[in-house]
């Protein structure tokens, strides 16, 4: 038996749960409310940097394979062909450019590390914070280049940096 009398921890513990209950019941405008959101009706906005899904700007891609090679999971599949494009300046020779035939990312394999976005030298890949693209069939998680292109609309502006940060050279 404890030698000196004190408020038993059992009673204090009851107080904690009771306070939490009161806090949850208290209306939102008085600083109360639940910690959860009712998901399909309310949604929490992901941050601008969130790695939700990879978006592809097809025009920038030169099918250089850097992303496919740096992918730890081997989940990017690229095929392309060479094409003649109109010259940059009038009178120049027509340029040879690589055109994409296929750019697939298998999201069933992807582990969202972001290495492909980082290594891309031509700014063709971006992160979008969208996350609602689950599929009933696992094979449907293979997004082709049209689908990846659609995600481009959802790519947000990157936020400013915290004080003391050095400006990016890029």
């Amino acid at each position: 038996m404890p030698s000196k009398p004190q408020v038993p921890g059992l009673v204090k513990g009851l107080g904690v749960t009771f306070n939490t209950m009161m806090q949850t019941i208290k209306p939102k405008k008085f600083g109360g409310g639940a910690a959860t959101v009712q998901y399909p009706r309310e949604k929490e906005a992901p941050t601008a940097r969130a790695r939700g899904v990879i978006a592809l700007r097809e025009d920038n891609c030169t099918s250089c394979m850097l992303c496919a090679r740096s992918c730890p999971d081997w989940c990017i599949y690229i095929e392309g062909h060479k094409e003649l494009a109109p010259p940059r300046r009038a009178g120049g020779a027509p340029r040879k450019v690589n055109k994409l035939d296929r750019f697939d990312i298998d999201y069933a394999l992807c582990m969202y590390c972001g290495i492909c976005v980082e290594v891309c030298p031509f700014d063709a890949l971006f992160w979008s914070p969208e996350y609602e693209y689950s599929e009933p069939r696992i094979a449907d998680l293979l997004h082709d280049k049209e689908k990846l292109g659609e995600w481009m609309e959802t790519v947000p502006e990157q936020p400013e940096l915290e004080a003391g940060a050095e400006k990016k050279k890029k």
Partner: protein
Amino acid sequence: MSDVTDLIDRQKLSYIAAQAADARLNVELETEGMTLNIGPQHPATHGTLRIIARLDGEQVIWADPSAGYMHRGYEKLTEVRTYPQVNTLINRIDWLGSFANEVPFILAAEQLMDIEAPARAQWIRAIFFELSRIANVSLFLGDLGVQLGAITPVFMAFRDREYVLNLIESATGGRFHPNFDRIGGLKDDLPKGWIDETKQVMKKLRNFCDEIETLLFGNEIFQSRTRGIGVIPANVAQSYGLSGANLRASGVDWDLRRDQKIALPYDKVDFKVWTHPDGDAFARCWVRLQETREATLIVDQLLDGIPSGPVMAKVPRIIKVPEGEAYVSTENPLGEMGYYVVSQGDLGPFRVRIRTASFNNISIVPWVLRGVFVPDIITILASLYFILGDIDK
């Protein structure tokens, strides 16, 4: 104390004890002992650890953990990956404190390349290191309640851990697997307003620690369940290589953040390394609670002193690590986590030995589970605190 560390004798003894217990039961009650399979699918095993326990009534005669249901072969996988690819892989070892997994590996690679990250990068690394400790251990504090039958603390843990995860996500982009650390620095700087937000969250986390302390640690039932249960003396703990809070709860004052030279600014902050003399389940839980609180204070100090400057040193675009070997370990949420990196001058490591905390922490289970009751198995496992990914690698 060679008798406790002498494993062969110990196993023989437990075998003899099991035989004797069976024989006694058979003679007196005409019953036999029971073998209880706890796991691989069991609410108390945090995943898929299996514990084979030989019971006499509710008392454990011997228990043998059987790991490997989630072995992913990381040491093999690292051999076919480049350094940046390994970095994203090892996020998944201790998935509750992912960022902390990256730090020792990156530090080992930096040691081999003989480069050092800029000061700002080191400070931000230390901040995230502590944030992942908070994210990890706060869940432990909640889960502890569930293991002991109290359902409410875990929801409080998830509620307040969410704030930390949001912080990590807003800066790194990944809630669980940040992959933010790079050889030579960090992927990016912090977004604007992050520091103020973090300070607010740290206040909430301290409040959470208070709540858990009142709800759980001050509870007489909780104390009677954990006090004196699963006592691990200091010499046994060292001999098994226990680390982190498990070691400190046995009275060993050893914290890699303070006690080794490492390229993280822990020498610039003032913090206390909590120890407890008892070595029982309560001590382990209590030390973790104090560490969580201490981590919020460390984060506050780091946020105040964060230097300005770049977050990335000059490193070649294609990283080749020169030949050599390095072992770097840090005080991760679960204990000492280290990477022994052997490089042969290639794009990827030649061999990486991953020293995870939980593997050693759980190897003591057969020793510590002898003679306890079935509910104590759960208490002791919960207090040793393991993450399956950290055992199985």
